[in-house]
């Protein structure tokens, strides 16, 4: 049996992060563009105007280029739960496996079956059947997202289950609780609408390039109108669901919330740091840094978290060291309780083996009393500060996401207003801005997942299983090799994707129809 190897944990995390971040380059475009295609094709079927068919097919081509690589990275993520996080797979497989299986049966088959008709069926099925296939591809992609996000949300807020000491794992007790987990619903809506936003900005940005080049102007203007309306609706909902998301995080993951705002000392009437930059290190807490500059909005953080400007928002130090006045117990106490739970489980198993039923019942009682902090027990004898996430990364990622989100809404509204009044073509600076906003929207997407995943560290399952107890027992060098193999392959494929996309865009909609095949 190997000793706990922290470098193995770090490399396993790095590999999962690498796969997830690459996957999330491609998926949001699939989620959003699939619906934009469906809307465009619906207009074509309703009006019979072949211009709309041309528009649909152009964006469909870009969709296809992007879709394939999203699928490739997705399969790795699913299997990495087993290959790299095998203990996790057993500990919660009874709950976590279900959404993944349902995703395959309910959503992924729908997506992959109808996508073939969408691409190849223009002359093989009727117009309406083709349109149905396009809509079903979009619905399938988004349903796929639903189940994956239900699974992810469960890790952040484990509900609907109970630990079974006999099988030494968590078991599902209420499927509907898992599905309608408040974190899941919020996460799903926030994530998919942000995907719609990305796709809208992608379409608007690419179309702006055509306007700058004075090519295909009718095609570009029509695309902009559809995408900007879709994008404004998506942006508004992304902002609303993001606001709700902050409250959900404040309630279920207070350490993540404190890290997002780099709030070390809890306070009533907590201000929101709207913009801030870190400066000198501070010795009080490991890795703590003072703000070199910050712009605050008074009371806003308390309001954001609890809809009450006077509410107390716990800081990182309150959570680590405890705050008696506020009823917050320290990490040291949680670790002690966690250890009690783990020891009680061991005592229960031994008593069961020895057929000492009374001893087993006593041990089970202690276990249940302390189970809430089970995961903390794995940090017995270790510095409680090991339980802190990376505050700096969480803070910057959160603020990047929020600021960019606001900017996207304003940009899309302005573009829509000008496009409706036929004045967009004259605003070259705005067209260039729209084009260069494409990389920014990808940055915002990545930042969003960084907030969600870095902020919850070290918990693989909030409070119940830390990453050191979840990882597979593999040699570190094996994970290092696969990490770099993935890095090389994914990067090569990303370069290929970008090159093909750029070439396809440069050729434009007219030529695209006949040029993708040799």
């Amino acid at each position, binding site marked *: 049996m190997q000793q706990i190897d922290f470098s193995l944990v770090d490399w396993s995390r790095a590999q999962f992060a690498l796969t997830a971040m690459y996957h999330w380059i491609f998926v949001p475009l699939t989620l959003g563009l699939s619906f934009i295609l469906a809307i465009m094709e619906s207009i074509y079927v309703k009006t019979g105007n072949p211009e709309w068919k041309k528009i649909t097919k152009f964006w469909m081509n870009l969709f296809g280029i992007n879709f394939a690589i999203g699928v*490739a990275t997705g399969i790795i993520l699913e299997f990495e739960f087993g290959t790299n996080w095998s203990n996790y797979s057993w500990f919660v497989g009874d709950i976590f*496996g279900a959404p993944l299986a349902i995703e395959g049966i309910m959503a992924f088959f729908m997506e992959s079956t109808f996508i073939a008709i969408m691409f190849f069926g223009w002359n093989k099925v009727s117009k309406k059947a083709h349109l149905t296939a396009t809509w079903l591809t979009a619905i399938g992609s988004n349903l796929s997202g639903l189940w994956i996000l239900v699974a992810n949300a469960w890790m952040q807020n484990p509900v609907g289950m109970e630990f079974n000491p006999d099988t030494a794992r968590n078991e599902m007790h209420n499927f509907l609780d898992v599905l309608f987990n408040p974190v899941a619903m919020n996460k799903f809506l926030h994530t998919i609408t942000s995907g719609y936003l990305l796709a809208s900005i992608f379409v608007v940005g690419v179309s702006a390039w055509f306007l700058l080049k004075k090519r295909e102007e009718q095609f570009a203007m029509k695309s902009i109108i559809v995408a900007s309306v879709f994008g404004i609706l998506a942006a508004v909902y992304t902002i609303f669901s993001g606001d709700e998301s902050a409250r959900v995080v404040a309630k279920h993951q207070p350490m993540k919330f404190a890290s997002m705002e780099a709030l070390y000392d809890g306070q009533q009437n907590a201000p929101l740091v709207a913009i801030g930059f870190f400066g000198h290190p501070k010795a009080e807490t490991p890795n703590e840094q003072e703000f070199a500059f910050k712009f605050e909005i008074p009371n806003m953080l308390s309001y954001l978290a609890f809809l009450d400007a006077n509410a107390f928002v716990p800081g990182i130090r309150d959570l680590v060291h405890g705050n008696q006045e506020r009823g917050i117990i320290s990490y040291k106490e949680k670790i002690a309780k966690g250890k009690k739970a783990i020891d009680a489980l061991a005592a229960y198993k031994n008593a069961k083996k020895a057929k000492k039923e009374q001893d087993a019942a006593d041990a089970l009682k202690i276990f249940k009393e302390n189970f809430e902090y089970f995961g903390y027990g794995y940090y017995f004898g270790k510095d409680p500060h090991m339980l802190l996430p990376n505050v700096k990364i969480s803070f910057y990622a959160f603020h990047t996401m929020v600021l960019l989100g606001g900017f996207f809404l304003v940009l899309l509204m302005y573009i829509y207003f000008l496009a409706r009044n036929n004045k967009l073509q004259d605003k070259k600076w705005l067209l260039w801005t729209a084009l260069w906003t494409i990389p920014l929207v990808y940055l915002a997407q990545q930042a969003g997942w960084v907030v969600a995943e870095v902020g919850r560290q070290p918990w693989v399952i909030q409070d119940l299983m830390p990453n050191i107890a979840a990882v*597979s027992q593999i040699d570190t060098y094996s994970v290092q090799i696969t990490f770099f193999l993935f890095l090389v392959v994914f990067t090569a494929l990303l370069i290929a994707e970008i090159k093909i996309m750029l070439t396809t865009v440069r050729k434009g909609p007219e030529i695209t129809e006949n040029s993708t095949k040799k």
Partner: protein
Amino acid sequence: MFENLSFLSLQQYWWFLIAVLGALLVFLLFVQGGQTLIYKLGKTEIERTMLVNSLGRKWEITFTTLVTFGGAFFASFPLFYSTSFGGAYWVWMIILFAFILQAVSYEYRTKANNFLGTKTYETFLFINGAIGSIFLGTAVATFFTGSQFSVNKMNLVDLTSGNMPIISAWENPWHGLEAIWTTQNLAFMQNLSLGLAVFFLARVLALLYFMNNIDNEVIVNRAKIYLKRNALVFLVFFLFFVIRLMFINGFAYHADTHEVYMQAHKYFNNLIEMPLVLIIFLAGVVGVLYGIFINLFKNSNKGIWFSGAGTILTVLALFFLAGYNNTSYYPSTFDLQSSLTIENSSSSQYTLTVMSYVSLMIPFVAAYIWWAWKSMDKEAITEDEMQKDDHAY
């Protein structure tokens, strides 16, 4: 409905579904088999384009079946997911790499400015075809020959030794690759023979599929020649695997104590004790052979239907042999009592019940896949279609 089933019945039902998904996956590996034949059957660019496009309209279903097979295994038998994927790390990683390469190759192969060039993407398709099928077959063979792992749930509560709190541990440094050289009980021969049988079966199915799906005399004639050779090699490996399987000791367990033990001729006994499985197996083998026969000697192009159905039945029977009748489906040769059975590795009764309701969607999914394929395959692929299609690969 499912609430009234016993826990064991639910475990058996889910093993049945895993077997169905596994069987469908092996049938759908015709895509992989076809990918290894592109240069054998296609001597010109247009011929290769026809072959790639014929497969390209199906590859996503194979891919999705693999993903669903993984997801369903995770949901129904999480201890297998944890033990096999976390233990046989290298085997699964190699399979996964092969599938990453496949996913992009169809879409990028002929696109302008595709960075790596058409040949590279065609090589990726070949690698996926060969490695995907051989490694999957070899991995499934370990269901009969065993692997070196241990399972100890008490490790989860060991805080004092400083050891990793790992439930399942692989007990050699090769993490699954040892399946191709383990000499104990000549396991490597058994494992490799199934891996190669699956590879050549995938090629046989691909050839039958091309003969049905492509309207081009030159390709069909070439396919016939390769069909004869590949069918013969397939039969050699398959018969070796099956005949030897009937003679080896198998991993049985007592129904009441769940103690695992070695039983002589376990898999032969399973066939005799489960006559329905025997019938399914024989029907499957006859179906595969009949499909090959009519395409070779009766000038038919319908062989894919018989061989495809035959493949599904044969693989179903093999999964039944591995998991039913008190048999350990994922045995450990390191510690016999760590072996996985459908009873000791499954999800809880509640989860299996919920998932069983979800499984009612499977016939509906199968129906729309059938409709979609029928719509797309109304007419065989021709040179003319390839030249006109604006989304041809």
